């Protein structure tokens, strides 16, 4: 049923519909609304899940690792410092091949203390073996969360569903909340491939000496490769029931585009508006939305951007000493492709600064007017700080 729903609550609804059995989280803005709603559902009996209250994000994920190992469907949510605190266990969850699903509300890392949108928190966890899916609107958040369980459980890797702080998490908009029966049809009960069983005791994840460790790592990468394929199949099945799909990488008017903007998260949505405006003025611009970041769909991206003459990547994140992280990944994907278009990197919207239609348009014109990128990253709208923000 279509209803006006907050982005956070779109996640909560999806988790309810997925019949998750164990939930654990530690509150942190801007994630908290997700868990508040879920804890109400558990308390009111609208969900049959066990809601484990814990003393930290580290414990939240540790609890889910235990729960998931016992063969149940699990969920957690966090942001920023909370995700950083989970870091060690993020590796554990993927190494142990547990299909845990997490909602990660992108929030800037501190200090300076900042609760607003910034993707650096989740992108800093790109090497932990989690599948990462970036969403741009409430409907996509709901659909992706439900899909994530199918994906995670079929490849035995954990999934992060990622949404921008406030621009998505706290924004109310119409969302179609599907019926339980339809979701049940799409997402049957979890059938674990292994689980803790007191009747049949065994130890998981004990010592893995050098003669097997590499094989295990390779096995995870094989699962990641397989996840690329599975993602599409999951989307197909979802589409057949609900009529919606998002694609790992969504090209918008890229076929004849001279300049392709590469975006992720809510910037994509605003960029669609800019794209329409520029196209109306005759500009040959295209938009490439990267939803699936891990595994990174390298060949798809190569194929989709190669006809363009320039690529402009907008990053609401930054890797210090390097560049915007999506730009890095796109460059890495293209570098072995002979005659690939130059990649312009733009950093915008860090710490919740608004990425307005004007900024996106500015990025387009800058790219169009430049020959080749003069710097790895162009920081959009950065103002000169004439005074020290603080003294030692």
């Amino acid at each position, binding site marked *: 049923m279509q209803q006006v729903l907050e982005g956070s609550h779109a996640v909560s609804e999806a988790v309810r519909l997925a019949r998750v059995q164990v939930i654990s989280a530690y509150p942190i803005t801007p994630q908290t609304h997700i868990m508040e709603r879920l804890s109400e559902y558990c308390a009111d009996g609208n969900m049959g899940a066990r809601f484990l209250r814990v003393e930290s994000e580290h414990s939240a994920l540790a609890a889910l690792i235990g729960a998931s190992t016992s063969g149940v469907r699990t969920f957690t949510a966090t942001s920023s410092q909370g995700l950083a605190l989970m870091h060690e266990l993020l590796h554990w969850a993927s190494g142990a091949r547990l299909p845990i699903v997490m909602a990660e509300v992108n929030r800037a890392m501190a200090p300076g203390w900042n609760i607003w949108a910034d993707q650096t928190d989740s992108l800093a966890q790109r090497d932990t073996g989690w599948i990462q899916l970036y969403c741009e609107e409430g409907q996509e958040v709901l659909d992706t969360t439900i899909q994530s369980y199918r994906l995670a459980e079929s490849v*035995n890797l954990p999934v992060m569903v990622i949404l921008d702080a406030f621009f998505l998490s706290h924004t109310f908009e119409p969302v179609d909340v599907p019926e339980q029966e339809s979701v049940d049809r799409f997402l049957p009960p979890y059938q674990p*491939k*292994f689980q803790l069983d007191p009747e049949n005791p065994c130890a998981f994840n*004990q010592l*893995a000496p050098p003669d097997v460790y590499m094989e*295990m790592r390779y096995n995870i990468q*094989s699962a990641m490769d*397989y996840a690329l*394929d599975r993602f599409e199949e999951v989307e197909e099945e979802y589409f057949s029931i609900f009529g919606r799909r998002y694609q790992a*990488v969504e090209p918008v008017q890229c076929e004849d585009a001279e300049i392709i903007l590469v975006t992720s998260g809510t910037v994509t949505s605003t960029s669609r508006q800019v794209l329409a405006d520029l196209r109306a003025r005759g500009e040959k611009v295209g938009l490439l939305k990267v939803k699936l970041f891990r595994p990174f769909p390298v060949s798809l991206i190569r194929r989709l951007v190669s006809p363009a003459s320039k690529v402009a990547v907008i990053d609401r994140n930054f890797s210090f000493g390097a560049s915007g992280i999506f730009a890095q990944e796109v460059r890495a994907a293209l570098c072995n492709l002979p005659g690939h278009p130059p990649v312009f990197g733009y950093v915008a919207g860090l710490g919740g600064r608004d990425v307005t239609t004007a900024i996106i348009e500015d990025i387009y014109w800058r790219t169009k007017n430049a020959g080749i990128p003069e710097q790895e990253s162009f920081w959009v709208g950065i103002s000169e700080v004439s005074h020290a923000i603080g003294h030692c």
Partner: protein
Amino acid sequence: MTLRQTAVNCPPLIIPCSRFTTESNKTGSWRFLRPRYENKTAPCSSACPAGEDIPRIEMLVAQGLFKEAWETVLMENPFPGVCGRVCYHPCEQVCNRREFDEPVAIRTVERFLADTATRNGLQPDIKRLNAKQQKIAIVGSGPSGLALAYFLARLGYESEIFEAMPEPGGVLRWGLPTYRLPVAILKADIARILELGVHIHCNKTITPRFLDEVTGHYDAVFLGCGHSHSLPLKIPGEDLDGVEDGLRFLQKLRQGKEVVLNGTAAVIGGGNTAIDVARSAARLGAKPLVIYRRRQQDMPAFDDEVTMALEEGAEIWELRTPVKIAAVEKDYVLTLQQMEVIGEDARGRARIRVQLNKTEEISVQHLFVAIGASSAEQWYKPPPKKSSTMRLSNCSILPRSQGPTVVFGGDLVADIKSVVHAIASGKQAAMALDNLFQNGFDAIRAGIEPNLVGDGPSLSMENYLGWPRTQSSRSVVHHEDLNTDYFRFAPRIIQPRLLREERLRSFAEIDLKIGTILGIREAERCFNCGICNQCDNCRLFCPEIAVVRDDTTQNRRINYDYCKGCGLCVVECPRSAMTLEEECLCNRY
């Protein structure tokens, strides 16, 4: 456009998963020290003259197993209702918790159990041994005689009690005021003993001829006659009409006689009887004045009782001794000699002497004498220094060539005269007689000795019967043996009591009942010194997972094939229920 890349098949799932155990390594062979579970003796148990298994009682209460806890009391003491009220609780003096915050209110928990048993009409499962042929006559139905009858019954012996008074109970029935011990409580405890088949003959005074008359009927006679004869002041005027003996006065009250007092009631003496008389007098309308020859702190009466007497309006005149009593109209004029302190004896009591020429006179309306008591008949007491008498800690045994063996017990052989010592006396006598009958006179000491609780002289009947407590070590747990990191500070329960004004209105019991939650909370304060309460610290801390829990018995055991003897379990046991010993290396090298 399709997003499908090269077709990828679902890869196999590789995770580290092992069904092997490293138990086959037998790392236990490397061990130099061996931990083992060993229940030990708590200081409270050892200090309890009845030898109650207090840490277990508290553990069971904390677990809500009230009937089991009550039965654990009954294993060693047939008088939980009485002792839960009037015992002077030496257990609490040595409670290890005293060094942590405050001792556990053990007596309060015992009374809680007795009250709970009464309220729920619990019937204890009291196990008894097979019937024996010997029969025992018990003279006096005070706590020692009743305790003896109780323990004998459990050992399989038939006994009969001869009581001079119309009802059983001795000092408990006639000597203690009801505000300390309501009669219904006493009767309930006695009824449970009589239900074991003990016969009692009331209103039956025994003469010395009795010992010979019963030859052939009884194999032994126990004399637990107590102190029923008050000591005289030996001063002029003592025999004046109306100068009352304190014990007789209390007895009169317990017989239900109506007494009204007014004016000042002087009580001479400093023992519990004196204080009982003073407090009773206060309830009957008089202003009590306790006259004692030493200082207040030297009074043999229990501190609590003295404090409450003062609260109830009694006055204490210390360092004064009466030298003359005269009757003037309806009053008594008491001449008091002042005393002075000239030092202290080994126990810290004042040594005193007369202050010459310092006397004073006081006019009082009532006068009670309670300076101590002795046995009513000389033959109740054990013969002095007779070589054939075996003197044990709480009873003496006189074998006779003709007639039944005579056992002396109760207050007449005790150093400390208390209810719980009388119970100890009955218990010791029961064990002694059993040994006498089964193995002969010379086997008595050796038969009793293994049943000492800790350092003794308390004895355990559970042990004597060979039940689980036998497995506990007699080694006493001291405060430094505990790992108190695992305990939290928690204040001791405050005994709820009647208000002063309410107390003075009647002889109603002063100490009020406590509820289940408070009872459990107090029992939870117990460290359970020396006994495993299945806290599982050993299992959680064992780095080798060599501590195994048996799901059916809930007991823990150590897998010695695997235990490397690191000793962590012993260190982390909060209550010293484990022991670390050197491994015998002789078999290995």
